[in-house]
């Protein structure tokens, strides 16, 4: 009786191993994509938190308020916004306006949005507020 010598078993084993490798790679890729997507989402949430801080400060300045120099605003789902506002310069002679009728207040604002995982986005803005003197 002649011994049976074939390649079906090794081939099948190799195929199974290759499939396992491919599956593992796919799983790893999916995990990486998920992490990347999750990171992008976190950064976007941090940016939106920072943007909301900027918008709220602009709104307060437009309403004639004087916001506190340092503020911490609660945001959604554990994120927060930290604001730093400084009045850098008061121009009594703003360009192209009559002297004594208006003053220009130059502010710089830093708005930092921080989400629960620690991801943060920071916006810096220069703002001018014109204030009539009458």
């Amino acid at each position: 009786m002649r011994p049976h010598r074939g390649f079906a078993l090794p081939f099948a084993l190799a195929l199974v191993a290759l499939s396992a490798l491919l599956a593992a790679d796919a799983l790893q890729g999916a995990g990486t994509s998920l992490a990347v997507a999750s990171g992008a989402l976190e950064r976007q949430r941090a940016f939106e938190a920072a943007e909301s801080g900027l918008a709220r400060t602009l709104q307060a300045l437009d309403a004639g308020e004087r916001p506190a120099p340092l503020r911490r605003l609660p945001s959604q789902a554990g994120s927060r916004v930290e604001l730093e506002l400084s009045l850098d310069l008061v121009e009594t002679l703003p360009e192209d306006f009559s002297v004594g009728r208006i003053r220009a207040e130059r502010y710089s604002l830093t708005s930092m949005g921080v989400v629960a995982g620690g991801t943060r986005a920071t916006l810096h803005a220069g703002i001018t507020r014109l204030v009539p003197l009458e």
Partner: protein
Amino acid sequence: MRALIVRLLLATAMASPWLCTAVQAEPLARLPRRDDTVTVSTDAGDLVFTGGSWGPARRLSFDATGARWNAPAAPSCLRELYAVVDPKDDGEARVYVTSSIREGDAHRSFVAAVQVPPTGEPRLLWSRDDTTLPGLGWVVAAPAVVHGAPRDSVAVASGWSPMPPHATGAGQVLLIDADSGAPLASALRVDVPVPGGLASVDLDADGRTDRLYATDAAMRIWRLQRRAGAPGIAFDARAIADLKTLTDPHAAFLHAPDVALHREGASLSLHVTVGTGDRPGERSGRHWLFRLTEGPDAIGTPPPTPMSRVALDGALAATPLTVAGRQIVVTRHGGDATCGRVEAEPVTVATLPPLLPASSRIEDFANTTVSAPPDARVRLVESADAGGATRLRCVLGTTTLTLCPAVRRLQRDWWSRDDAP
């Protein structure tokens, strides 16, 4: 016969706006305070404070005997009142007033200061008249506040004669201590009246007034530069333009110069704009708006300075206003007031010195008729637009001027973003 003469005199007085007028209601400022907002305005020759928690309006009147609160002033033929409001950082405000009255042959001018505390009623801080301020003369313009070094003072231009002919006698810019009313010095003394108002300029934003601009009855523009390092308060006065040959002999500069900082590339300059009105009791055939350009650091005798002008369609009725680089002017035609925006760049007519006769064409000048008192002042106010953003608009009396450029109150000049994991 005597009754007829009196009637004729009265009719003459009533017919001339210079002989029997009163400055009409005109809001000057809104002062926000802890518990309320106080509005300061002038009304029929009185200074009026409304809106305070003290109740009814408080009215300060001047008559031949002095200043009185909430008492009707003695009947007078002529009562004029001009005021400037100086808000402080601590919530207090000062209102400095010039008032000129004439009762029959008697005439008197006042300079006074009213304190508006952070809470409570306004109170008269001091009041001086021409018996204690020699040379005050007849005042027809608001004072200017000179801030700092070492204390605030009030600058008053004067010298107009209350009786015809008005443009006689000497004039000066008198400096008065803002706290006590004591005369300090004269920033300018000339041999003609200084009837117009003053522009006070802080060039370096240090809170101190560095420079005043004034005009006189000889149609000159004066730069009064604060003398650095001088003890007390001292100014160096230089005539930077003589516009007599370019103006009608019946015209005068009656309103304060308008001063605005302008950038052309990397260089900064000051635009000084003055306009002509009618001398009291006279009528000029042509009126002009002149613009002078000089450097912010200009001192001493001026170098040749570009000057330009546009024709006005009537006598200037208020200090011009510059908003976002556009010039807004109010002109008077008899009893009507119109407001216009200078639509074109003024034409250069001369380089100073010397001045050359004008041969340039008349520029466009767009007008809008408004219902406002002839002595109205164009104010810059805030109002919300349809999108909820606050804009600055020009108001004459109660009329919003559509020709005034609407400027957003808030601008985001720049921004950048940093991200961190």
